[in-house]
């Protein structure tokens, strides 16, 4: 893989040039948090963010979108969510998240709504610095070797830019004068130092290797009941997870009579309706069972199929769940490590 150098002041001019024929999505501020948004004002692009509220999968499959337009003549597929896009500022863990989604949407039945959007989006990754909620080093998703067209490592005064695809190379060729092919020894030393420091900045971790066995051994543990008692079933953990991919569909008929739409929207296995079938029977009526399914899927089943968890260590469930049910507290509870969490303090018997 070719690596070149970009001076900091050339980043925004470069983004401006390459986004002439595509929407540029990048992290911008929303309150105290960040979100991916289409930007035209490059001064709003945030370079030193941690996680965005929603993961970048919203750019490929929006929370709700129309799949078909239905009329008397039949139905017409609706791909209006597929436009030319450039996604800048996506961190290694989130790129791993997309690679995980690729596995889902390419297996058995190809999902055209995802794959078309994916094909039309260039991935411009950006390095990051962990905060107290990141644990991507435990999932080995703090580094990335594939899944991007360009990857920018921020070394303060300049970026080292990894060229990951021929499409990425085409972008560089639009403004080759911005880049320097010749890296000095000092540049390389700066990179190595940065990497060592960055790795040290991960302050805690989880032993994911032990979790598949522990989930098996503790499948009937009272832990799950305790989690289910406190869980608000708000679906937030699934909505913010970069590897969750379930959806539901809903018909929207128009009043005039004969036309309508089929809407697809993000579903969550932690919601009650998810496991309900015709006639009202529900396979996972209990929240405890639904949480067990989610964690078994993320921390055990996916590992047995792909050799790694479908958790990428982004920390979104940790900052989002109001009752502290997240990969950190559940993982640590499975490992028998002490943690402080609302769900552990919660008492379902007494409210006074």
């Amino acid at each position, binding site marked *: 893989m070719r690596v070149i150098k970009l001076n900091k002041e050339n980043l925004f001019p470069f983004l401006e040039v390459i986004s002439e024929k595509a929407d540029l999505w990048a992290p911008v501020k929303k309150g105290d*948090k960040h979100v991916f948004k289409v930007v035209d004002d490059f001064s709003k692009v945030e370079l030193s963010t941690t996680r965005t509220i929603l993961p970048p999968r919203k750019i490929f499959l929006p929370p709700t979108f129309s799949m078909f337009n239905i009329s008397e003549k039949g139905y017409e597929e609706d791909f209006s969510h597929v436009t030319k896009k450039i996604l800048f500022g996506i961190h290694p863990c989130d790129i791993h998240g997309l690679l995980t989604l690729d596995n889902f949407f390419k297996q058995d039945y190809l999902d055209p709504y995802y794959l078309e959007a994916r094909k039309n989006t260039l991935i411009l990754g950006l390095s990051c610095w962990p905060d107290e909620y990141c644990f991507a080093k435990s999932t080995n998703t703090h580094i990335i070797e594939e899944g991007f067209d360009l990857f920018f490592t921020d070394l303060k005064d300049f970026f080292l830019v990894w060229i990951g695809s021929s499409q990425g190379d085409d972008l560089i060729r639009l403004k080759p004068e911005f880049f320097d092919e010749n890296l000095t020894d000092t540049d390389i030393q700066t990179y190595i130092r940065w990497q060592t420091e960055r790795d040290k900045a991960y302050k805690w971790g989880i032993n994911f290797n032990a979790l598949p066995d522990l989930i098996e051994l503790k499948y009937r543990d009272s832990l799950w009941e305790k989690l289910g008692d406190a*869980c*608000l079933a708000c679906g937030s953990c699934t909505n913010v997870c970069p590897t969750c991919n379930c959806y539901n569909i809903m018909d929207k008929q128009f*009043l005039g*009579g004969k036309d309508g739409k089929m809407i697809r929207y993000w579903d969550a296995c932690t919601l*009650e309706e998810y496991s309900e079938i015709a006639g009202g029977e529900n396979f996972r009526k209990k929240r405890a069972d639904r949480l067990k399914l989610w964690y078994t899927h993320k921390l055990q089943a996916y590992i047995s199929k792909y050799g790694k968890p479908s958790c990428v260590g982004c920390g979104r469930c940790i900052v989002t769940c109001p009752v502290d049910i997240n990969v950190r507290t559940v993982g640590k509870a499975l490992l028998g490590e002490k943690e402080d969490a609302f769900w552990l303090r*919660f*008492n379902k018997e007494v409210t006074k």
Partner: protein
Amino acid sequence: MEKENNDKLKIGIYELTGCAGDALLILDCEKELVDIFNAADIQSFLMAKSDNIDEELDIALVEGSVSTEREKEELLDIRKRAKTVVAIGICSCFGGIQAAFLDQKEWEKNFKKIYGDTKMTHTKPVQSKPIDAYIKVDYYLPGCPIEKEQFLSTFNRILRGNPPELYRFPVCVECKWNENDCLLNKDIPCLGPITRAGCGSICINHNLPCVGCWGLVEEANLTSEFQLLQEKGFDYDFIKKKMANFSGTGIADFLGNLKGDKK
């Protein structure tokens, strides 16, 4: 081509105790009004027209809660005349604000406190309750007021003999879709997790906490929400009042059985 009236389903839209916001919302569907009146034979709709006919109906949409004897009789009559009854809006579905004290068995005492010895000549007031306290309800369309898209889609489905297809999850789901930062995590008392979605998390989009005006979601974990708010430092009575505000019958049992109630 316009259908003749006798081919269309006969609809009645009725208002009991409430702010009339749901009826107003229907009237406010200006772009779709022609379609609504074209798709159905609107026999009775007091807010929209004066030549109302109260006879046999295919579908009755009922807004508001029952708070007088006369409304009770009106409702029983509607049920008798209509093949399908749909409760529209929070008051009709769960009781709304006027049913906030359903958990207390002291309605008469409270009534006296407010109205004193005033003689009610018009009709006899009763404790305000949702319509399913008196009649069988076929479908529920909650909202405060109901949401336009959801109303149109539901109305259309019911006209075709299909049950409504509504979101059955809490506000939090739509709130995340709108990429809001969770207010509970900022120690703001938000009822999103126990409140049914459909509003598009409109309050939280404007940085205001959810007040629960769409009623309880089916699986509301009230105990967890209550303790979470307590842990964030809100006091017992504050939380109780906040939760009771809109959800009427949905929450009366929970609040009535809370331990440690000093009053």
